[in-house]
């Protein structure tokens, strides 16, 4: 029995998720592969294809005044003050579930950050929502549940644009829902889905991290000076694991304004007894003379080998390359994506522009207070969250499939993508 292809079912989703919703049907593998080519993403400002997103957006757009021309194609940053309007408008149209709502709030406030953490929190919230779900009469489980999930995803996107890891997880979930045999009862279907989600989290994230730890620890020798940038959970795990194994090494934590994530990582490392040096991104040429290895995390890796990660990673990799220091990127394979990207401008995420003018802990940096209107007219503040590191700066990518060069990423995407869709 063929299931009709479900393209863009339910409410139109404001961004890339709709474009990547290609539910597989019973056809030959080749045709499947051709269909799997991702259509171009819906851009935020594209009136013809997805411009409805702007009109349907429940949050008021912040004034266009301070938006950088170059980034008009990206949705502006949402901050916590817009929460009341979010609540009132959004839940008129969609059903509310407390777990998903909570996760959305955490994204909006910035409490939850990091690809793995966000993905796990989202999937667990979906598990709860699925458990509490009951099929309304006259509707099939698969269709209705898919549209509900689509609604939840729209809400999360309103809070904060999805990361690549979350996008891949949602694709997985929707494909699982679509493959549910129609003979299952509702409770059986729900249990199957919840256990699938558990298996996904366990295999693709938790176990994958353990495999990565083991691989990466072989690359750390006694006497090494390891450099890391920002705060990546995988890199932190690697450093602590290698320390437990008894290896003697020093860590250099490089940090940058405005996120200052490195300070949190620094505290966690020093508490465990690692010897650390802390510096900010500009001083990277100064410290790179003594560094032997650079470990970086990634939000996603694209099919042309470009690493999409926290803004500033590209600079670190470039300087390391100039000083001939090997750069190891540690990333689970579920974060790989078929997209290709050449620069950091075509696709990115905008952060809060006002975060730039203030420095936490430095009251003397208040030059941008009290600007006149004329000054404000000419000044734009740009706070990017991600950047794209070219593949030539990367020496090796450590994944749960082993240590691969950046050129092998499309191979993994192609050969192993089907594997997890079919588990």
């Amino acid at each position, binding site marked *: 029995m063929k299931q009709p292809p479900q393209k863009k079912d339910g409410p139109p989703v404001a961004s890339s998720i709709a474009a990547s919703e290609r539910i597989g049907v019973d056809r030959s593998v080749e045709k499947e592969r051709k269909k799997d080519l991702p259509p171009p993403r819906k851009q935020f400002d594209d009136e013809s294809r997805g411009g409805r997103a702007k009109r349907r957006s429940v949050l008021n757009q912040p004034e266009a005044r301070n938006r950088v021309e170059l980034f008009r194609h990206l949705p502006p940053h949402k901050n916590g003050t817009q929460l009341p309007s979010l609540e009132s408008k959004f839940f008129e149209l969609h059903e509310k579930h407390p777990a998903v709502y909570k996760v959305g709030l955490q994204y909006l406030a910035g409490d939850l950050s990091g690809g793995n953490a966000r993905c796990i929190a989202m999937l667990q919230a979906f598990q709860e929502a699925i458990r509490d779900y009951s099929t309304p009469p006259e509707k099939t489980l698969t269709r209705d549940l898919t549209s509900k999930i689509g609604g939840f995803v729209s809400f999360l996107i309103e809070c904060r644009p999805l990361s690549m890891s979350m996008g891949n997880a949602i694709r997985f979930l929707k494909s699982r829902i679509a493959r549910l045999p129609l003979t299952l009862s509702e409770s059986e279907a729900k249990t199957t889905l919840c256990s699938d989600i558990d298996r996904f989290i366990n295999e693709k994230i938790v176990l994958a991290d353990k495999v990565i730890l083991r691989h990466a620890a072989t690359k750390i020798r006694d006497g090494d000076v390891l450099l890391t940038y920002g705060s990546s959970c995988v890199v932190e795990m690697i450093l602590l694991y290698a320390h437990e194994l008894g290896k003697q090494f020093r860590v250099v934590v490089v940090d940058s304004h405005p996120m200052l994530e490195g300070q949190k990582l620094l505290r966690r490392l020093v508490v465990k007894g690692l010897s650390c*040096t802390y*510096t900010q*991104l*500009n001083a990277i040429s100064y410290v790179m003379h003594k560094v032997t290895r650079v470990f970086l995390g990634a939000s996603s890796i694209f099919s042309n080998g470009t690493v999409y990660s926290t803004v500033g990673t590209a600079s670190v990799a470039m300087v390391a390359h100039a000083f001939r220091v090997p750069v190891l990127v540690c990333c689970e394979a579920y974060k790989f994506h078929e997209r290709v990207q050449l620069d*950091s401008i075509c696709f990115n995420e905008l952060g809060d522009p006002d975060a730039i003018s203030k420095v936490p802990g*430095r009251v003397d940096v208040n*030059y*941008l207070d009290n600007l006149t209107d004329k000054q404000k007219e*000419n000044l734009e503040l740009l706070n990017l969250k991600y950047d*794209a590191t070219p593949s030539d700066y990367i020496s090796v990518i450590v994944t749960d499939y082993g240590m691969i060069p950046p050129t092998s990423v499309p191979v993994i995407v192609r050969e192993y993508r089907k594997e997890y869709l079919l588990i």
Partner: protein
Amino acid sequence: MPDTQALVNDFLNKLKKRKIEGSQATAKQTAELLRSVISQTRMPYTNQAAALIHSVKAVGERLIAANPVELAVGNVVRRVLHIVREEDLSLTTAAMAGLNLSAESDDEDDTDRDNHPALSAAAIAAASRSTLRPPSLQTLLEDVPDSAAVPHTSSSGGDSEGKSKSADKSSRSRKLKHDVIEAVNELIQDISTCHELIAEQAVEHIHQNEVILTLGSSRTVLEFLCAAKEKKRSFRVFVAEGAPRYQGHLLAKELVTRGLQTTLITDSAVFAMISRVNMVIVGAHAVMANGGVIAPVGLNMVALAAQKHAVPFVVLAGSHKLCPLYPHHPEVLLNELRSPSELLDFGEFSDCLDFGSGIGAPLLHVVNPTFDYVPPKLVSLFITDTGGHNPSYMYRLIADYYSADDLVLERRTTSGN
């Protein structure tokens, strides 16, 4: 002298405590101080130049030792020494010319020879021979330790004519001092107006619809961009904030006040944005003899990104920033580390500072360098008050401003004295 001593000590204090901001201010104050030192120097009858050089070197050594990282101090000291030597040279040449003239007129008037400056002809001729002759191995070996010492030995024979020569020698010494002080005034003037001369060249490099990137704040860059704006060139500026001092905020504020479209970005976004930038324009702290640049921290990263994207990297520097020394290990020897409190809050991290490793050393180090070294191969162009130059050309400018004898300022304590 007591007056100058007080001035010198005061300036030394300011240098040691890093109270003076910026190489232009430092250079100007150094030049003014040396001017007072020169005007207070007591000039002997012979070797005026040597006396001046000695007193300037004495003060200069101490100034450089107070703040070795502020290269502008050493540059100005060496410029002044070069001025002294040059003025001495030109006076001697003039005296030589006078000598030739008097030699011709000697045939006419023998009786006037005693009163004529040509009486000191032997001394002058010997002195000028030493200053005017090109360096050869023999002269270099003879001139150890001080080339100004040679006139001393050659004029010892002329001491018998001391009294008659004293009048014209003192007038010569006054002339030397006067000339030197005039030249130092010109130097101070040059230092003050270097921004205008550099800004004049802005129109040659900025055309329409350009995007310019800069990092931190530099007055030279500000004047440069405003000069281009005056000439109605339309361009936008990306300013990277330049942690940990965040001077980029100041520059952005200044630029928007003058009506320029400015975007303030974080340092981490430089690599992301540089593909859309046409030119990177930055200021420098010092330019070394090989064309390398001592620049505010973060500029090496920007220069590497600019090279990768084939964006021209232009450095603006006044001529008082050109240092005749070659950099050896500049990241360490020509760098200063600032307070860690600019990066970490001591209160928040006080518990981390107590943890000890097995040998009791602290586990947490914080590194906060002030400067970065940019190698000459990453710089596309230097724009100075004398025009635009390639990094490979900078060593030639040194010959214009400095003498080879002044590169090492420490006085030798061996036999030469």
